[in-house]
Every structure is written in structure tokens, then in C-alpha cells.
């Protein structure tokens, strides 16, 4: 992983409007233990992350 690595995150459909994602996606919730969970793009493609 380096500074150019893509980090994938699943988004609830209600949090997408006209293709734009709410900034809430980048705010960890207590459910996330206040840490943002993402997929490492060096190991997991966007499609794989979506299907997971």
C-alpha cells in the first residue's frame, strides 16, 4: 500500500444521489468503532469489494 493506493468503501444506496455520495461516508460511526473501514485497492478490486 502506498499513497497512490485506492481505498474502496461500500456505500448505502440511500447515501448516493445523482451519482454523488454523502460526506457521511467518510465519518466513522460507533458501529465502525470510530475507525473507517476500507478495502485495500492493492489487494481487492472495486468489483470484489462491492461483491463482498
Amino acid at each position: 500500500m502506498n499513497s497512490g493506493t485506492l481505498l474502496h468503501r461500500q456505500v448505502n444506496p440511500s447515501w448516493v444521489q445523482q451519482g454523488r455520495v454523502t460526506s457521511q461516508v467518510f465519518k466513522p460511526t460507533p458501529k465502525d468503532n470510530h475507525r473507517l473501514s476500507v478495502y485495500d485497492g492493492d489487494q481487492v478490486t472495486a468489483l470484489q469489494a462491492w461483491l463482498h
Partner: protein
Amino acid sequence: MTTEPFLRPRPVDPLDVPARLDELRLLKDGWFEGHGSAPTATGIDWLSDRFTRTYPEDLPLPFVYPTPDGGIRLEWSLEPHDITLDIDLAKHTASLHELNLASDEDQEEKLNLDEPAGWGRLIEQIQKATEGSS
């Protein structure tokens, strides 16, 4: 021969707020991965009515999203200003947050949306950001 004027249906703006709020009426409790409260119908009725009557037509429309606690978040991307309004549909209060992406400065304040001054403060902030982003 006379002809009737042809009435064209008025296209709905892709960011039409009442239309988007109507979409969010379909949410059920648990919509957020098994958690999350759905916004109440009375809350959506109130917000839709207030927004339609109060928000100037010449200002940019926000994106509208539900929050897991049953509220509604409005977001405006007016570069370099990123403005969000987190609305509590039960209390009719909101938290207005403005982040300047160029300077990294931000500010937050509480608004009472049952008071004209609350909406006035929001409108003032959007007007200022719109002027600054043009």
C-alpha cells in the same frame, strides 16, 4: 379552427428537494445495515413545507441524504465551500457546518428552524458561499 395551448409538463430539477424527500419516505427502520431510524412522515412533511416556502428559488439546491439517527442532511458543494445542514426532524433544530477547503477553516453553529432567523442564517451562508464560488 382554434387550438388549445399545449401544456408541457414542467421538468423536475434533479435536485428537487421535496421530490428527494418523497423518495426518503420509503425508508424503513433498520435501513442502515440493520441499524438506523427512518425519518418520520411528519418530519418530512414539515421539512418539505418549510424548505419550499422559505428557500429562495435562485439559490443552488442541496443534495439530500438520510442520517442513521432519523434525521436529514443537506449538503452543498460550492467550491471551495462545503456546507452541510444536519436537521433534527423532531426538534426542528439543525447544525450548520461550513468548511472552506482552500483554507481548511471551518465553523459550526446551531439553528432553530422554527424561527425565521434560523432559515435566514442558512440562506445568508449559502448566498455568501455562492458569491465566493463564482
